[in-house]
């Protein structure tokens, strides 16, 4: 059993007690501590800015050309906060309850309660930074509804809430860069975690323009490097999103928790062909006004407008009358898969369902719908060449977010002392399924409010500046990374990294996607090592490693996906239950819903690396539900 170090006391007071009992670092001593933060999305940028404000010395790394391009930028719909500005019965408790239930009772109560408490302060801070949230005519902030909730608690900035929040965090980061507390390293990618005497003491990173590899030492390392959706090749994630930072930390002793919890988002634009490089999400907020349906008849090839009302199956409204089109993501995705598997899907290959706005347009008018979702409709038109004002959108589920991540305790520290993990890169708050508009909330809560209060607990125990750059143990880690890159360069095969990534993606989607079985997972586990072997024999990287080389960057990341995916499938195989985004066909209720097994699996699985080719060790953190009664999740 691993210990999450949850503070004592009633859940409402845990965080306040924690802060009261903590010992901050004396202001005069803070600049003696150097902290490395990898990743500049919402979690990384907000952490770097906040630690800089406190007076720590911070180095901030990202592989993109600018911190502002981190993938948080693509979040569309919104950010939750328990403000109850709508007087519709919202509260910290209700947000806590919705998140635990939405995560299918596989998240840690204490962390989620803290998240719900902090949600309120996030909105205040972002408004103060100048984030242009949507407002009502009276000058107050507007809210909308998202899946898995009966109240309106989602704050938004049209369909680009992620970009606006990230620009806010980026501006705070810029302020600290200007003040000299934060040093920024764009286009610099982490290659490895440096662990000295069991403690995280820095990273090895590659300058992506010159190819130079070097060590950066620190007193603590923070990973805010996002999720691992591109293990499936096609996902809604950006092209550069990767698992390398967290996976390499895992290989250095950080436990990886619940890798099988992956979120398949129900409303994405269907794939149009083999060439496709990514899938595009259509925000969940569209389900506020759009109605999801398929034809009642099998293999109905009539166009949408030719199908009369009584021959349509609004299956979400039929199956989940109280939540309807706002059923949570895992449930909506599975329902879409079921109707498509039943032969009632629409569009090429029957891999799609309609998201229809005609009712809403009739009810409130085209201009109102355009004000709410205009930019999303435009994006749909650009990609598909079809106009959703005239005919329904076609949508299909796609991999979107990963709830699993490096295991962290209440302090957000991993099993490697001095290594902290924030945002999507950790596992702690969303259980087996994340509710819409909660990722932005978690990233910012972790970075602005949690880490700045928890990191002192660790820093108080160590002496700052113990390890120097020329320490033999540091130069050795640089040599190891250099050797790894040299091995990649030397393969000189015949295929591109994309080729192997795509092959991996097919296996992952077919055998470990929306529905998993013991036999499909065993098949994946036997196929993945074969692709990995082929990759190390036959990948080709033209050019040199001492220059700007995007093929090398890609190969470097694909190599990690080819190892990590095995862990993901293994975790899925060992979790003999269905919960949230992890659906094992063997474990379902008679009406096809996920069937949890609380007796045996009410725990976090945290994996310990034991060398490539050896089975990792599965540790457990027991989940205790002291405040919310464990129950079968129902949205009916």
């Amino acid at each position: 059993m691993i210990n999450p170090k949850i503070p004592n006391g009633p859940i409402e007071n845990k965080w306040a007690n924690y802060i009261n009992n903590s010992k901050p670092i004396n202001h005069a001593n803070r600049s003696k501590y150097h902290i490395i933060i990898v990743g500049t999305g919402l979690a990384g940028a907000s952490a770097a800015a906040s630690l800089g404000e406190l007076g720590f010395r911070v180095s901030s790394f990202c592989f993109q050309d600018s911190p502002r391009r981190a993938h948080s930028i693509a979040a569309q719909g919104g950010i939750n906060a328990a403000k109850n500005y709508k007087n519709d019965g919202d509260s910290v408790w209700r947000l806590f309850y919705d998140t635990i239930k939405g995560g299918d009772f596989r998240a840690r109560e204490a962390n989620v309660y803290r998240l719900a408490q902090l949600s309120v302060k996030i909105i205040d801070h972002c408004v103060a930074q100048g984030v242009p949230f949507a407002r009502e005519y009276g000058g107050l902030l507007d809210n909308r509804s998202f899946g898995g909730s009966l109240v309106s608690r989602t704050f938004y900035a049209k369909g680009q809430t992620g970009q606006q929040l990230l620009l806010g965090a980026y501006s705070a980061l810029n302020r600290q860069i200007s003040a000299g507390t934060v040093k920024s390293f764009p286009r610099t990618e982490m290659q490895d975690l440096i662990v000295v005497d069991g403690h995280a003491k820095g990273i090895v990173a590659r300058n992506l323009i010159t190819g130079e590899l070097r060590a950066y030492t620190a007193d603590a390392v923070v990973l805010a490097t996002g999720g691992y959706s591109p293990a499936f090749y096609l996902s809604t994630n950006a092209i550069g999103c990767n698992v390398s930072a967290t996976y390499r930390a895992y290989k250095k002793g950080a436990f990886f928790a619940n890798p099988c919890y992956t979120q398949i988002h129900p409303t994405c634009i269907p794939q149009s062909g083999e060439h496709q490089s990514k899938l595009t999400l259509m925000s969940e907020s569209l389900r506020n006004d759009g109605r999801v349906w398929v034809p009642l008849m099998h293999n109905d090839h009539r166009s949408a407008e030719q199908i009369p009302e009584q021959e349509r199956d609004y299956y979400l409204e039929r199956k989940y009358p109280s939540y309807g089109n706002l059923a949570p993501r895992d449930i909506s995705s599975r329902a879409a898969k079921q109707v498509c598997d039943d032969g009632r899907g629409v569009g090429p290959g029957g891999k799609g369902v309609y998201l229809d706005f005609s009712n809403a347009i009739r009810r409130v008018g085209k201009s109102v719908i355009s004000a709410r979702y205009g930019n999303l409709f435009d994006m749909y038109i650009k990609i598909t060449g079809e106009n959703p004002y005239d005919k329904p959108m076609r949508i299909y589920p796609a991999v979107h977010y990963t709830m699993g991540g490096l295991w962290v305790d209440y302090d957000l520290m991993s099993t490697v002392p001095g290594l902290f993990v924030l945002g999507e890169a950790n596992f702690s708050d969303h259980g087996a399924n994340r509710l819409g508009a909660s990722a932005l909330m978690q990233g910012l809560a972790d970075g602005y409010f949690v880490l700045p209060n928890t990191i002192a607990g660790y820093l108080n125990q160590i002496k700052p500046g113990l390890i120097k750059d020329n320490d033999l143990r540091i130069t050795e880690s640089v040599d190891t990374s250099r050797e790894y890159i040299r091995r990649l360069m030397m393969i000189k095969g015949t295929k591109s990294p994309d080729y192997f990534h795509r092959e991996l993606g097919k296996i992952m989607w077919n055998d470990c996607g929306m529905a998993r079985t013991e036999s499909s997972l065993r098949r994946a586990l036997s196929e993945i090592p074969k692709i990995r072997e082929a990759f190390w024999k036959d990948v080709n990287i033209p050019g040199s490693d001492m220059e700007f080389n995007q093929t090398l960057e890609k190969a470097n990341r694909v190599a990690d996906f080819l190892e990590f995916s095995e862990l993901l499938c293994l975790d899925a195989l060992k979790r003999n239950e269905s919960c949230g985004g992890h659906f094992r066909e063997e474990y379902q209720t008679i009406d096809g819903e996920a069937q949890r097994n609380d007796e045996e699996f009410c725990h976090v699985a945290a994996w310990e690396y034991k060398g490539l080719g050896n089975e990792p060790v599965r540790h457990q953190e027991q989940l205790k539900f002291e405040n919310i009664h464990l129950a079968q999740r129902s949205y009916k």
Partner: protein
Amino acid sequence: MNLRNYTLKIWRQKDKFSPSYLDTIQVKDISPDMSLLEMLDVVNNHLITINKEPIAFESDCREGICGACSIVINGIPHGKERGTTACQLHMRHFEDGETITLEPWRAEAFIPIKDLVVDRTAFDRIQQAGGYISVNTGSAPDAHSMLIHKNAADEAFDAAACIGCGACVAACKNASAMLFVGAKISQLAHLPQGDPERKRRTNAMVMQMEKEGFGSCSNTLECEAVCPKEISTKVIAELNWEFIRSINN
């Protein structure tokens, strides 16, 4: 599906010290549903299999919001479709057999890195100079303690929609960054939170913009025409107004 063929003329440049040239590449069997960048993926995958250097180009989100993609397509930054980034430009907009010329952003302040990739960190430095509101984490009052007129919030949002891609600079004959800087200034100038620092902010950002080597605006308005987020040149007028205010106390 009717697949199409194209002739690509692509700017190649090994690094900032090397001369550039236009490389001609024939591509076959391209689906009209592919994006321009997916077409380049196909080309690159082929080049890698024959051990030739693939074309370096930038992209990340591939849904028009991160601002990474940056290609001048047939002489127009992001191509001829209005309000569209290169990653959202699909091949259905190109005729079968067409010759497509691809070049990087070209401006003194954007230093070449390789092929179609340039260094745009000048934009970061302009924002570091003052593009923020000085508020420390934890010090904010309740969000509803301040009423903001819906029109002001909407105008701030319209300016904030800038994705920092730099197409405005690439389109401008003076390589001016006034649309970009104007958008940043305008966003905060419309909001009461931005008011205390407005003069200092404008001054610092304009000074940094000059230092980076961006040119001045001579009102050709090409920037607005190519901006993938259709930011209005109204923000340039606002920038000028804010700048005059910032020096005349």
